């Protein structure tokens, strides 16, 4: 019984120690690197999607060059918004 209790307190101490240094520098660097990979493609993907939407809408309504131009810029804005959101999330983590 006594041994059992001893083991439980030791387990508790070990677990609290584990929690303290859970986020090591290495781990943090890894997750930041992951986010850095995210930033580049997010910016480009939104521009591509915006342009494709503009192209499709243009061929639907027959307003050839106009919607693709507008949606290209909207896509660029969406891409920048994506990047800002990711950056905010990275700061929150810190």
């Amino acid at each position, binding site marked *: 019984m006594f041994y059992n209790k001893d083991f439980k307190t030791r387990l508790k101490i070990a677990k609290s120690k584990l929690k303290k240094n*859970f986020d090591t520098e290495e781990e943090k660097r*890894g*997750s930041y*690197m*992951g986010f850095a*990979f*995210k930033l*580049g*493609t*997010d910016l*480009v*993907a*939104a521009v*591509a*999607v*915006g342009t494709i*939407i503009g192209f499709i809408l243009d061929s639907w309504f027959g307003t050839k060059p106009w919607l693709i131009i507008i*949606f290209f810029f*909207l*896509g660029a*804005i*969406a*891409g920048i*918004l*994506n990047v800002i959101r990711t950056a905010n*999330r990275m700061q929150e983590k810190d």
Partner: protein
Amino acid sequence: MATNPMHQFTVHRMGPEIKIANIDLSFTNASLFMAISAFSIFIFLFLGTKEKKLIPGKLQLISEMFYNFVAKMISDTAGSKAKPYFPFIFSLFMFILFCNMIGMLPYSFTVTSHIIVTLVLAIFIFVAVTIIGFMKHGIGYLKLFVPSGVPALLLPLITVIEIISYLSRPVSLSVRLFANMMAGHTMLKVFGGFVISLGLLGGWLPLGFSVALTGLEILVAFLQAYVFAILTCIYLNDALNLHH
């Protein structure tokens, strides 16, 4: 042909041609390596969890590490509400990780270097997350596209931008994994080709680069699987806990 750096990505049929309603369903080298990845995950986890010791052996330790890693990732990014989706995210992470890692072996084929594979995974996640969002919040899920505190004049513009941003998710998710894997493997092959063409005199420099790149590629293989899984968690988080 052997020195062509893109030759490693060709998909070719293995065995008989199977055609059902004009759709080619033949067994290819891509399907073979997908099956190998899935099978090796199964073997690895089966052996790792067979003997449940208090003091774990090597295999048990590694499989428990993977479990902890994914469990922590989910609870950190998506909270306790995302617990039921653990099996899905764990299998997704393991599948991409094993596909990437098996692709690093010589003479193997990298399944994730084909955009169709990553796009299907990403579109599946995109559709699933959207359905989960609508199931949890009903029509209120559309609030995701209408941020609060925006002047009424700007609202239509912001909504369109938000929709583009939402639709860009599967594209960026799939292109990132595919582009990283394809670029890395092409680069490895190009430097490998330099070693042969420069011969015994000048070949040592690209050989050194090749060794360094292999290390980098193993890091990228792990990191891309991690990014894919953590972004799935983030999208799940958006769907489960609606706040903007």
